[in-house]
């Protein structure tokens, strides 16, 4: 009797392991049907006055385990809208990577009030081993003309947190739940002898399946990226700054008085909550004084550049970080950023 009960337990544990493997396969199949690049315009509706300019960004997320190469954006819209700043092409977007490209649209002086639709045609190359595809996708743009909005709005200034992720399908979560339940069973079920061996074996199969699936999906790289680039608000070095950047009148006057060209590098990471604020603050300063120029650098992609400019402390790259190129000075974080950036720009103690 005891023997038969043990045998039933063994069969149940092995069945659980097999079910997990099957569910993993189903999860992979579901994964294959998902879009490669997810494209979203931020903000979703662009508001611009006739003759005015509006800035925005396209958030591009690679939801596949392979890189997307040479992502190009071609504007297609009616004559009432022209592209004031074309989005930069993205050379490589790593597996599961997210990036954003900025652009600006200008409405014609005589543009009639109302809603105009336009679009970006997005072309990119996607390779799995030696097999490459060229893929074309559309990103629709909704532009509302006539609203009384400022002629230039810094994109991202009011964006809270990282761009929203597309919702995952149910199957991968089912696989995760099965593995979690099996782990829970190991904790709760009192097993002995062969039943314990069977449960351990099922857990071993689950561990190998989950690790293999994780590596295949590039999650080990994702883990490394999260660990390699540290955002200051992520572990409580400072509070996340997500408001709209502002300069006091005295600070604005200081920016206006800058009389020498200054080049800045702004290091960010897609998952950094304070980075949009730091980016928008630098844009705000640069919009007041054309002698200030800047470039945004994805620290996760250009790690060598981060190391070269001292944005890496110990072994960690810390973002957001603003580097003044001629002096090599660095300002980390977003807390009290306006005051500290002015110190960086003027060379005086902030």
């Amino acid at each position, binding site marked *: 009797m005891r023997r038969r009960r043990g045998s039933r337990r063994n069969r149940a544990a092995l069945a659980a392991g097999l079910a997990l493997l099957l569910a993993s396969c189903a999860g992979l199949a579901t994964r294959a049907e998902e879009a490669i690049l997810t494209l979203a315009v931020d903000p979703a509706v662009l508001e611009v006055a006739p003759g005015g300019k509006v800035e925005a960004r396209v958030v591009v997320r690679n939801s596949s385990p392979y890189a997307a190469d040479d992502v190009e954006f071609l504007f297609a819209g009616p004559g009432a809208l022209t592209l004031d700043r074309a989005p930069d092409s993205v050379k490589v977007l790593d597996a*599961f990577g997210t990036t954003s490209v900025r652009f600006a649209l200008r409405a014609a002086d005589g543009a009639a009030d109302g809603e105009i639709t336009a679009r970006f045609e997005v072309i990119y190359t996607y390779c799995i081993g030696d097999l490459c595809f060229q893929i074309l996708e559309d990103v629709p743009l909704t532009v509302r003309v006539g609203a009384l909005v400022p002629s230039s709005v810094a994109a991202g200034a009011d964006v809270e*947190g*990282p761009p929203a*992720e597309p*919702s*995952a399908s149910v199957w*991968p*979560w089912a*696989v*995760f739940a099965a*593995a*979690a339940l*099996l*782990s829970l069973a*190991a*904790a709760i079920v009192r*097993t002995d*002898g062969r039943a*314990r*061996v069977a*449960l*351990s074996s099922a*857990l*071993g199969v*689950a*561990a*190998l*399946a*989950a*690790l293999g*699936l*994780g*590596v295949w*999906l590039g*999650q*080990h790289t*994702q*883990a*490394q990226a*999260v*660990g*390699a680039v*540290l955002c200051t608000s*992520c*572990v*409580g*070095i*400072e*509070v*996340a700054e997500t408001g709209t950047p502002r300069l006091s009148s005295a600070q604005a006057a200081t920016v206006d008085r800058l009389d020498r060209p200054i080049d800045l590098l702004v290091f960010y990471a897609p*998952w950094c*909550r304070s980075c949009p604020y730091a980016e928008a603050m630098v844009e705000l300063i640069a919009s007041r004084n054309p002698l200030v120029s800047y470039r945004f650098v994805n620290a996760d992609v250009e790690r060598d550049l981060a190391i070269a400019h001292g944005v890496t*402390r*110990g*072994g*960690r790259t*810390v973002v957001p970080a603003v580097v003044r190129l001629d002096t090599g000075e660095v300002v*980390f*974080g977003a*807390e009290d950023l306006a005051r500290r950036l002015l110190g960086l720009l003027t060379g005086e103690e902030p």
Partner: protein
Amino acid sequence: MNLTRGRRLSQAAGIVFGLFGVTGIGMTHILFPGLHCYACPWAITVCPIGLVQNLVIYGTVPFFWIGAMIAYGLLAARGFCGWFCPFGTVNDLLAFRKVRIRERLSYTKFVVLLATLVGAWALTDTIFCKLCPAASLEASLPYLFLGVAKVNTPFLLHMATLGIALVGMVLVARFWCRYLCPMGAVLALFNRVSLLHLEWDQASCTACQACAKACPMGLDPRLEHDGHNCIKCGACTVPCAPNSLNLRLGRRRTR
């Protein structure tokens, strides 16, 4: 080499592995089998608790994470707390008062784990990292000296949680490991099935209670060595005169 010396060497290896970034090799893909902050300037491994919060925020199904956790669980489970975890070693160094564990209170670590995951999902933020005393010790303090961190509210909050944890450790041996560690909660799930395990031979046991007095987790190892609180450190095996308790690596014998 006796067990205590072997464990001290293993704990030293855990610290060296945790701080191996001083060699300049940078972050690897490895998840640390313990509570060790990936924000530590010299970390080369990813903190599982920090990572899983990020994955919950991104909506990523954490296959790699759960695979690694099960693998660590099958190998040694909470043995990593006793033999390898650097923050566990801090607990160990302050383990003066080996008082009896409060069994019900020890489930708090599972509540902390659940709250960490729910907090990440509900608030889309790594809330636990902002309170974690290991991060206080391994990230906040080093970054203060590296000129990145400032003495601000988050820093003071970190120092407060570190202070509370340290006082707790002095008053109750392995306070953090007993009651609050979410990483200990993850590894505890596998305590019954891990290859590293304690064996008790009831026949030779004289019930002298020397093992219970030596246990830093405040357990009675004879009866609780398979439960979620045992960190498989083997401290109980040292004073056991009849050799009734033994730490083994391998297949468990059927009782």
